[in-house]
Structures are given as structure tokens and as C-alpha cells.
């Protein structure tokens, strides 16, 4: 069975023919659209390495059928920076050593961008940690990740950054 879908990926309209409806959004991004920034850790919803924003909300790309994303807007790690200018969350991860090997990092960053949009945690590190509990880091960079998110939140709240996220 072949299915044809259209979706927006990082602001670019894409038309894709799917030969098998089992294809996940994650496999579509990585194997068909060559967007390999989104990582496959567990492929079953447990690690968060595949986190992307679907219509503005963070989801695990490994648990979404590509076919069910027809008409949707997807934002991946590749769509965050504006040219050479990093997104404030990306810059904060570097400034605060929010990574070691980097495998979990795209998912952490997309999850953090989603978290900041949800605006539910305030500046409480405990609530930030809870809201990031769907993103595992085998290197244990958690302390830096939490600091990076709190710092990015402060920067984005500053007047000159009002619309960057």
C-alpha cells in the first residue's frame, strides 16, 4: 500500500510517498529526508532522543506514524539555528556543558524548546527536571542540562529576545 503525505519540515513543504504505513516520523526524517540530527535511541518512547516538535508540541518521533503526520508542521534540531546564529537553548547547552557524547543532545534541546514554550515550570529546577524526565542522558550531563535550560529561559525572557523561540 502506498500513501502520499504532505508536511512542513522546518518550514519547508515536503511531499512524501510512503511505501509502508509502518514508517515512523523518525525513520521518515532520518532515512528519507536525510535529517539525521534527530536520534534513534530506544525506538520505543523511553529515551527521548527522537524528540521533535509536532505542531508546536514535543513528541517522540519514534511513536508517531509518518502517515498520521499528514498536514502537520514538524520542527527538528536542524531547524533551530538561524544560519550561523544558534538558538538560545543551543548556545546555553554549550555554555553550561549540557552534554558529553552528544547523542541525547538534539532530543534534549528540542524537549527544552518545547518545555520553554509550555511555560509551566517557572525557574524551579525541580520542575524543570520533572518536565525533562522523558529525556535520558547516559553520560549523566543532567546538572548542566538543567542549568542550560534555566539560563536560556532567562535570556529568552529578556526584552531583546522576545520572539526568538
Amino acid at each position, binding site marked *: 500500500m502506498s500513501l502520499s503525505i504532505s508536511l512542513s519540515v522546518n518550514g519547508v513543504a515536503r511531499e512524501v510517498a510512503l511505501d509502508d504505513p509502518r514508517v515512523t516520523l523518525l525513520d521518515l526524517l532520518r532515512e528519507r529526508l536525510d535529517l539525521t540530527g534527530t536520534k534513534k535511541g530506544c525506538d520505543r518512547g523511553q529515551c527521548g532522543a527522537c524528540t521533535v516538535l509536532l505542531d508546536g508540541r514535543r513528541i*517522540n518521533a519514534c*511513536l508517531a*506514524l509518518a502517515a*498520521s503526520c499528514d498536514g502537520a508542521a514538524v520542527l527538528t534540531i536542524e531547524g533551530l539555528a538561524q544560519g550561523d546564529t544558534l538558538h538560545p537553548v543551543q548556545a546555553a547547552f554549550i555554555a553550561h556543558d549540557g552534554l558529553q557524547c552528544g547523542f541525547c543532545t538534539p532530543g534534549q534541546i528540542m524537549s527544552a524548546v*518545547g518545555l520553554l514554550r509550555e511555560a509551566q515550570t517557572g525557574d524551579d529546577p525541580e520542575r524543570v527536571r520533572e518536565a525533562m524526565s522523558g529525556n535520558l542522558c547516559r553520560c549523566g550531563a543532567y546538572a548542566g542540562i538543567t542549568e542550560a535550560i534555566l539560563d536560556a529561559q532567562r535570556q529568552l525572557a529578556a526584552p531583546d529576545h522576545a520572539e526568538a523561540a
Partner: protein
Amino acid sequence: MPSLNYAAPTSVQEAVALLAGAAGLAKPMAGGTDLLVQLRSGRLKPELIVDTKQIPGMIGIREEAGGFVIGGATSGAMLEAHAALKAAWPGVVEAMDLIGSEQIQGRASLAGNLCNASPAADSVPAMIAAAAVAVIVGPKGERTVPVESIVVSPGRTSLARDEFILAIRLPPRPAHSGDAYLRFIPRTEMDIAVVGCGVNVTLDAAGVCTAARVSVGAVAPTPLLVAEAGAALVGHTLDEATLAKLDAAARAACKPISDKRGTIEYRIKVAGVLARRAAAIAFERAAGRVAKGH
């Protein structure tokens, strides 16, 4: 690999016809957070997946006749963001919110949690305590079924193959009502309940309980409505004797298994303790005092 078909119908009739017409196994899909894992592991080999998210009424929350109608595929994130629902049914919303991470919350639904039919499904005891009903659609039209009658055994529901849940209905709320759901897990996040317990009460102006429903999860093949536990609360305030009766009734209903998460004895003991704690929160909420779930 056997072939799999996918359809995203835009009406109930179309969806029912697709489910009825499939030669092999046909599965409705809401968020897919259970379905995709089972598809991947090979545990489930459907011939057809019917994505229900494009069907009118499947996504969204509306107030109706003093109660709430929650579309079958409405995500946990949408429940959490609905202030009126959260104010009326904090226990149901917090139970749903316990499911997985924020990423899972973006997709996972009440109907999917119910129809996956896990004994440990977190939202189910909360829905049972709330006296929620499932609005089921099929070839013969619509029928409503109490949530406690949906799961018949692990992984199996009472729905026919050509039926699916269009919405979950929560009843109107009398004054001085409150609900709560608590689960016990070895970690603080991202784990499966060892025991879960939902309590829903209505009090009179003096704080005496006039109606109560108690449900426990993960301690039997299906989530249970424990009538004796509800009866233990009615006519009483939360004094020690009442709590002891509630505890005993909750424990008596348990028919758990021993597994790596807990032994039979442990699960039974925890069920009694959670019933006491959830009742305390439900009473506080019913009395209008703010109580945080966990």
C-alpha cells in the same frame, strides 16, 4: 513482512465500515503510544490501522449538561491545559498526567489507555472512581458503557471488533465533591504502577460523606471498582475507624500476582495505604481545601 493498511477516516460511519470490513485484525489508533510499541515488538500484527484523530469529536473537551465530554483521542496535554476540567476532576487529570513523559503526553489518550487494557493503566481507576462512561460507536449506532465494564482481561476489552470509543463522559459534579488518584512506583517518574488507587467522594455541608467510589489498579487482572471500600466511607468523616475499614476493604478486593515490581503481600498492603492517602486528598478537595496529589 505481511502488509499493513492505514486509513485516516473523517467520519464515524467511514471508520466503522473500515473496521467491520477488514479481513484480519483491525485496530483503532489514538495517540499510538501503546500501538506503535506493540507493532514494533511484533506482539501485534494488525492488517489495518484506523487512525481516529481526523474524526469529528475525537479530539477536544466540551462541557455538557454539567459534565464533561472528552473526545476519545484527546491528548493528556490537552486535559492538563483545561482549567475547568482540572478544577472539577483533578484526580482524573492527575492520573492521566502520570502517564509517561511530556512527549508521551502530547499524544496519549484516555481511550487508548483504557482500551490497551493493561491492569496497571493509570487513568482507569481514576475514571472508574469518577463514574466515567465510554461512548462507544459501532454499526448499530451509539451505546454508553461504564468504564469499569470495558476491560475484561489483560489486553482484552468488551468492545466488538467494529466498535471504538468516540468519547469519555464525566458526570456532573454535586457541590462538595473531590477526587484523587495515587500510584506507587519504585521510581519517581516513567514507571509502571505497582498499585494505583482512585477515590471520588461527595460530602454534605458538615463534611460527612454522602457518596463514594473507590477503584484499585494493578492488583488484579483488570482495574477494579471496590464497592465495599466506597461503602466504608459513606455516612462518615475520615476518622481512624473509617480509614481502617476503607483500608481493609481495599485490601480484601486485591487478587494480585507477584512479579519483579512487588510480591502479593506487598501489593495488598500498599493498596490499603494508597486508599487511605487518596481518600484523604479527595476529602480535602471536596471540603474545598487545596490538596496536592503528590
